[in-house]
């Protein structure tokens, strides 16, 4: 078990170091950071001054080492916009994005898991087919467009909900809905196939022989046994979910990572962009590590296999 955790932590560290490298490469290899920071209207003297002030006249390898050692102490430098520490700017926005992602996952599960259970208990019933077809239809719909349609309906037409900002629970409703609707079909499919797999196992036959109804078996035994792969899946999906969140945040001017990142791009605030990439990757690694530990706690088979 200890070796397993150690190995996972080592893999996570590699990912974080690679994210730091990528963020450095984006800023320093793809383009010239001085031009990015200052725009293109500088006299040669001004440019040289700026190059020297930011240390860009040093060799790239030296800059990389300096960058890594600073970042590993949590120092991403100052935001070029307002001199706040970049890490602090990002950490201020991160909880807003986390709330949206978490809200979307919980909402999607609250709908999808009952649908999946119903689907297994009443396979190919009319309700089952209608629900699954309907959710599959929403799957391909772009989240940001769905968000705009919700605004059109609930804000512009009905005046029920605020269309922008983060003020209280009611401003959460539309972003969470826009993010969770396209997610539901995937969760239904996953939970359903997990349940079907578990229901084919020998211990289920034993429970049937004992006289339990399908209902009891599904609720008391199958659901718990199909939980572990589901947690892994959710942790893996986080990265993709953040993608949709970034677009949806933009629709609602929600002050999370997405809005921060886009506004940082508009003013070419490189330090904040770098901090976003590294800190989001770190958050992902930590969450995945926690998911792995949670699974090892739920499911004794993982503990045995990991030994």
């Amino acid at each position: 078990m200890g070796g397993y955790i150690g190995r996972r932590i080592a893999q996570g560290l590699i990912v974080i170091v690679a994210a730091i490298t990528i963020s450095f490469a984006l800023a320093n290899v793809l383009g010239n950071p001085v031009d990015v920071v200052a725009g293109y209207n500088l006299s040669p003297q001004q440019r040289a001054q700026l190059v020297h002030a930011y240390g860009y006249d040093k060799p790239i390898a030296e800059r990389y080492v300096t960058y890594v050692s600073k970042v590993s102490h949590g120092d991403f430098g100052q935001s070029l916009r307002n001199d706040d520490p970049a890490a602090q700017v990002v950490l201020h926005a991160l909880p807003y994005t986390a709330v949206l992602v978490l809200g979307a996952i919980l909402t999607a599960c609250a709908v999808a898991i009952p649908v999946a259970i119903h689907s297994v208990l009443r396979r190919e019933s009319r309700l089952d087919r209608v629900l699954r077809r309907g959710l599959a239809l929403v799957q391909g719909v772009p989240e940001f467009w769905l968000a705009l349609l919700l605004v059109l309906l609930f804000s512009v037409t009905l005046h029920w909900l605020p269309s922008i900002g983060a003020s209280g629970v009611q401003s959460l409703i539309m972003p969470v809905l826009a993010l969770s609707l396209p997610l539901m079909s995937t969760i239904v499919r996953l939970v359903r196939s997990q349940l079907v797999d578990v229901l084919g196992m020998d211990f289920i036959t034993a429970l049937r022989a004992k006289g339990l109804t399908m209902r009891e078996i599904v609720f008391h035994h199958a659901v718990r046994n199909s939980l572990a792969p589901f947690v892994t899946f959710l942790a893996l999906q986080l990265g993709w979910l953040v993608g949709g969140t970034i677009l949806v945040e933009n629709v609602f001017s929600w002050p999370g990572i997405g809005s921060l990142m886009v506004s940082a791009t508009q003013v070419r605030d490189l330090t904040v962009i770098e901090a976003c990439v590294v800190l989001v990757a770190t958050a992902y690694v930590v969450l995945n590590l926690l998911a792995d530990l949670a699974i090892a706690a739920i499911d004794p088979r993982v503990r045995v296999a990991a030994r």
Partner: protein
Amino acid sequence: MSAHAVGVTTPPASRSALARSASRLRALPGSLVAGGALLAGFVLFGLLAPLVLGDPNKQDLNAAYARPGSPHHLLGADPLGRDVLAWVAGGVRVSLVVVVGVVALSALIGVVVGLVAGYAGGIVDATLMRIVDLQLAIPPILLFIAASAVISTTVLSLILLISAVMWVPYARLVRTQIQIERERSSVIAARLAGATRRRVLFAHLLPATSTLVLVLASLQAGFVVLWEAGLSFLGLGVQPPTTSLGYLIAQGREALGVAWWIIVIPGAVLALFVMSANLFGDGLRDYFGVDAELLEP
């Protein structure tokens, strides 16, 4: 009927060929046929409609906010009086170019890396698996946004940028498949018979992955369409005068209260485009009997 009555066998060649192909069509999964038909429609629309509809960037301030159904603007006009239908057609065309470019390039890179990693193993393989971890850890859109802060986006740079992320699933899929295939007795026999490494790779291993790659490519197409539109929506994708569905939706956002059609129409086209690509991909997967779990991200 009368031909039968006089005992003459006249096989109506064309009709039976038609009937045969019709029955063959019926044997295909419904989603493959429906998705394929829709996609073909989009290709035709993207190729032909811009020729008929003229310049999507033509501004006509007299027609600003023209409603759908107006005589010269069937699907309405945007705040600058640009025709929504012409712009949507142009947007579909650019989407198609980006999709074809990204799918071709990322499949090429991914297959080569997957082949090498699966066959050679060792350090190439270990590196590849860390890249896969990394790609899951950093949301691709974050990289796109970060990169677009540094480089200017054109159709070509967008294709390169998205491909730089999209090759990973192909590499992973091909790697896994190669590891299975190279242990097959036919492949081992070929090796023992003295086939060169190159021949084993290209004549025995590569063909075995082609179906999987085809199915994965068709399933990835929808993602590419979404990413192109999403980036353009943020103002980070292709820039006007290059047309894009995402850009038009962003324009509509400015006029949300007054002109619903600028958002609803391009978004619906976008959603339908993505759905038909996904439908086609699902159909292809079912047709070839590929295990869905193999293709999960």
